[in-house]
């Protein structure tokens, strides 16, 4: 990967991603942080995170846990007086963190997102049991899976646990893969 050490390139990079373009309009009013249900768990609440991006602090931003605590509730987005769409900004930062290998290990959210996405890419649907199994395998912590057993049993008792995966027709699966491989070769958004 090309080295992007200067602060200014990080801002440009974020601004070039859909959702990131409003970054320069921020007036630091803090409406986003005040609206966020999960701000208190973030290393940097949304307003602060935007300030850090603008200061070009790539590592600090991309290795933080902040964006991984965004539940995509879009409350900040509908309230932002500058129409910045902080939710989209969070998604953009998550993707950049993944691409640059900086996503934090202090929350399991990146692993969960990864295991979900693996299924979308490979079969175009997300069978819940296989997805959860894959997730716990990737976390390398079988104890966590044990803690889920009572919930799984409860689902099973109520006929809500299906092992069977919905499969697309083989030609549709191939079509989706061709589209996604092409997307991959186009090298992301920025």
């Amino acid at each position, binding site marked *: 990967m090309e080295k992007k050490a200067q602060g200014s390139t990080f801002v440009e990079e974020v601004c070039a991603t859909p959702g990131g373009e409003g970054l320069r309009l921020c007036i630091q009013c803090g409406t986003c942080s005040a609206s966020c249900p999960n701000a208190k768990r973030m290393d940097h609440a949304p307003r602060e995170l935007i300030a850090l991006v603008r200061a070009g602090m790539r590592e600090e931003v991309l290795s933080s846990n902040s964006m991984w605590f965004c*539940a995509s*509730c879009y409350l900040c987005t*509908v309230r932002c007086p500058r129409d910045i769409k902080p939710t989209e900004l969070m998604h953009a930062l998550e993707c950049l963190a993944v691409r640059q290998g900086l996503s934090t290990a202090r*929350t399991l959210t990146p692993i969960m997102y990864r295991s979900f996405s693996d299924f*979308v890419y490979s079969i175009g649907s997300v069978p819940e049991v296989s997805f959860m199994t894959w997730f716990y395998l990737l976390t390398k912590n079988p104890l966590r899976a044990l803690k889920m057993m009572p919930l799984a049993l409860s689902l099973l008792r109520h*006929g809500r646990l299906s092992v069977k995966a919905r499969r697309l027709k083989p030609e549709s699966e191939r*079509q989706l893969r061709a*589209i996604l491989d*092409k997307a991959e070769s186009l090298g992301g958004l920025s």
Partner: protein
Amino acid sequence: MRYYTYFPGCSSSDGGAKAYNWSALAVARALDVELIELEDWNCCGSTPYTSVDELASFCTSARNLALAEKRGLDLVTPCSACYVILSRTNASLKEHPELRAKVDEALAAGGLEYHGAVRVRHLLDVFANDIGYDEIASRVTRDLRELKVAPYYGCQVVRPGPSFDHPEFPQSLDRLVESLGAEATLFPLKARCCGGSLIIPEEDLALELIHKLLDSASSNGAECIVTVCPLCQTNLDLYQGRVNRKFRSKFNIPILFFTQLMGVAFGIEDKVLGLEKCIVSAEKTLAKYGGR
């Protein structure tokens, strides 16, 4: 008869929220609405894919939009996550020509093209605005008077919008509940977050949000909550026991899909509506009203 292209989404079609799909189809039939499933649709990608690889996630939902465009009907989904993701793709493709060019190129690799003509709708929007409350009221056969229902919208059905309802103080589900003859209770947190898929990696955080929701609903006298999203239903229903343990609370509030409550009011059989799939049983609560 009204026709729509139907996108059930993974949880409702083959996952833990099958009851949503069943009840949606049954209620639609009763309202002369035909939901024609989009053939060989793929997962919308949901928030996770958006957060890992944006371009791929746009392409994933663009394939669905391209397939739906050939049919020329509105694309309806009962899932709030599918709704927000498909709508977002539509909006982003319009706003960002560079993104559009890349998505077009990727779609072409699969022999598809998309011109941006599909209108993405949530099932609640279709029932509330295309069918209308009067029509819904006219199909009611079971008396649900005095049943106190908290209408839970969650986030993604009304945000980020532009949507068919207010982003923070929506009314459509309240009115739909009232058109069924039941009473929509006050529910100040009705458009607040349940934690979504963060329940999996960050359970404590989500349990706290769910607790606030259950508390808001029950302190306003709700006997049940209706939702418009498979994930909201799962979080409030499956995790209610864990909320009780963590916060020493005693919630025992059934969480129904809004289509299940509609089906109950229309006199459709419990089994068809998948009522037995509720983890917090709705049986006793519903038995009190207009019993058969």
